[in-house]
């Protein structure tokens, strides 16, 4: 099925290019580094309009080389095509917009519809969104396009603790309002949810991303109940944007064929995110922190924690912004990402000592942007990770060099 979709999209692309004059492809001049609210990320993408057609297309790709090792053991040189993503949007009619994002990973082995929703605008404060929705938990989940970031890897807390990119089928409302330097936005959705795999998986830890493997979530919720996602965000021109978000609901299959097979078990996720560009130095700061609470049977293995927390902080400093190597608005940036994740917050019942299973990472970066839609980035990762018993941490380090661009 994936191959059929891939071939269809490939054919569509070829056909589109064969049928129209390239001069009719009008690029929208989006600068991916400029910010509205984080929730605008799906709109803040460069699209090509197909002449007078209401359909716009776009996308991005990410490719890397990396050489990473853990205490003397390395996979050697790794050349990776992380992903290619296609956007298709359409202004269907007055106040009706359709947007979608289809991602190809592992050379097309994994094809995922990450976002496909219809937005109906009733009022700037009241818009209906329905379809496949990226749940607004933290900031990264909705704002994950590779070219926007100075780091080859996505934040560990966002992908290995939170399940970015996490999308589910559902409906909800969103809206925004402005007043002088202030901007306020909200989102509220009811969607399908997680499933038992978050505490029964091949990671041997509570692992929300495990539910991403369950494509049935686009058809039915494993628990038969709704997952609630809500976010409120405030931006001030001088102080930046702060977002508070929640995602929660029953995650497990507690009834089967009308018969009770387990207790209802709940998952709650809280997150705070922040981003700002300091006016004087153009220093860009962004980060998020999330707390996860999962109801786990008390007779279950302690490898699966009922509390997790973690997050990241990116600091990016442009050091040269001018015409370079023939590119008019090129920039050279230094950056650093700080990350921490604790997959199992708590103490062992038997000893009272802290449970480990945590990680920290520091990743200095240098990036070059010939345009704001394309980035070349060189990172070095310094990471230490402890196992569940809090044994001496494993040290990981290495380089990654990558490029990412909208197209």
């Amino acid at each position, binding site marked *: 099925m994936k191959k059929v979709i891939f071939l269809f999209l490939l054919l569509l692309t070829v056909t589109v290019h064969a049928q129209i004059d390239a001069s009719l492809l009008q690029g929208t001049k989006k600068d991916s580094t400029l910010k509205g609210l984080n929730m605008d990320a799906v709109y803040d993408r460069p699209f090509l309009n197909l002449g007078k057609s209401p359909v716009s297309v776009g996308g991005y790709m990410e490719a890397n080389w990396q050489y990473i090792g853990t205490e003397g053991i*390395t996979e050697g040189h790794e050349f990776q095509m992380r992903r290619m993503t296609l956007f298709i949007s359409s202004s269907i009619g007055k106040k009706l917009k359709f947007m979608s994002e289809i991602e190809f990973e592992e050379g097309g082995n994994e094809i995922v519809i990450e976002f496909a929703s219809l937005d109906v605008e009733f009022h700037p404060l009241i818009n209906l969104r329905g379809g496949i929705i990226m749940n607004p938990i933290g900031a990264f989940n909705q704002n994950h396009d590779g070219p926007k970031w100075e780091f080859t890897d996505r934040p560990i807390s966002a992908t290995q603790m939170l399940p970015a990119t996490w999308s589910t089928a559902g409906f909800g409302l969103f809206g925004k309002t402005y007043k002088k330097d202030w901007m306020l936005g909200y989102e509220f959705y009811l969607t399908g949810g997680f499933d*038992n795999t978050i505490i029964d998986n091949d990671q041997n830890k509570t692992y929300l991303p495990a539910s991403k493997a369950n494509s049935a979530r686009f058809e039915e919720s494993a628990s038969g109940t709704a997952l609630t996602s809500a976010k409120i965000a405030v931006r001030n021109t001088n102080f930046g944007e702060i977002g508070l978000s929640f995602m929660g609901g029953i995650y497990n299959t507690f009834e089967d064929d009308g018969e009770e097979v387990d207790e209802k*078990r709940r998952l709650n996720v809280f997150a705070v995110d922040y981003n700002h560009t300091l006016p004087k130095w153009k220093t860009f700061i962004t980060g998020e922190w999330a707390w996860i609470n999962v109801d786990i049977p008390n*007779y279950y293995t302690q490898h699966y924690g009922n509390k997790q927390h973690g997050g990241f902080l990116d600091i990016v400093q442009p050091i040269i912004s001018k015409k370079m190597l023939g590119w008019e608005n090129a920039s050279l940036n230094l950056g650093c990402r700080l990350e921490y994740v604790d997959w199992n917050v708590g103490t062992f019942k038997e000893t009272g000592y802290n449970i480990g299973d945590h990680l920290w990472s520091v990743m200095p970066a240098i990036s070059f942007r010939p345009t704001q839609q394309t980035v070349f980035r060189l990172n070095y990762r310094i990471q230490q990770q402890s196992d569940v018993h809090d044994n001496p941490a494993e040290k990981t380090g290495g380089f990654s060099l990558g490029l990412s661009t909208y197209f």
Partner: protein
Amino acid sequence: MIKSKITILNLILIGLIIGSCNDFLPLEPMESELLDGPMEGLNHAQTAQFISGDVAFNDELFHSGNGLGPLFVATSCVSCHAGDGKGLPSTSLTRFGQVDSTGNKFLHLGGPQLQNRALPGYTPETIPEGATYSVFTPPAVTGLGFLQYVTDADILALADPDDLDGDGISGVPNWDYLRDFVIPSPDAITKDRKYIHRFGKKASVYDLLEQTVDAYNQDMGITSLFDPIDTYSGLAVDPEISKQTIRDVVFYLETLKAPIPRNQEDPQVQNGKNIFSQIQCASCHLPEMKTGYAPIEALSYKTFHPYTDLLLHDMGTELDDGYTEGGALTSEWRTAPLWGLGLSPDSQGGKYYLMHDGRARSIEEAILLHGGEAENSKNQYVGLGQSEKDDLIKFLESL
């Protein structure tokens, strides 16, 4: 011109990074600081099988989708034997229901092993009323291949059931029947159709195949063709792991290197080694053994230093939990190999959890818990001066 130079410099910089990136990676710990890794002398095919076993042991994590449980103790091998080292109280297992050599009277109630964890929706086992039990922390698994190929004759030669030499130390093998899938070694010695068992805290396991099959079945609820009985239903079910994987794990356990002693030139360590012999610790914790023939050449006819005699010894009332296995008395425990002792904290969260259930929080505490046949050695230790005690501990930490 300047732009070209900058571009060339950047490309050279990137080239240098790519060309020398190994120099920027975290260093590998010294071999002697690690318990894991293959023994020397394996050929390419054996190394490949070692890696297959390594993957199964350290990377394969079980869940309901690949056979876990529904009743279990742990979800993987590595969750109990991190870095192939000892486990902690949080990864311990409980066995119950046998008080003497007549067998386990609680098999119909889930004995001998308690599956105290269960998949969501299932109810884990509890210890039946009236059953005595003992808690076992996971042992280190390195060097087991050497222990496997010590001949029965050598083990028997060390036994002194009637203490004929009058040193207060007897030592007996654990004689027991074989499981149906176990094939005895060619040089096996039998007594009343029973065989000498050597693995496990009570020396109740014959060989590494039995240990591996049992661990999959009893610890993780993973059935195999060797043991297809599901611990939840008590019925034979389809195998959840292949015979080949079991064989690979057995090979991995056989060919894990023996722990490498450290600081052997340190005078304190050398003095401690002398004291170890003087106070008769070495009578049971035998410093040197040798293997007989082994199908793996690297294990054949080798001398090694495990600090065990593979025999059962009466350890006194304080370590008598009222539970036993095979032909052992409830107060009898197999001499624990001491090799790798100093590396225990690396797999025990930076702390020591010693003796069969981890109750000793230091090496000294472990020594002081010795009783029975080891009472005399313990008393001699108590009588040592502080510096001698320090030297002895330092020697034990060097193993």
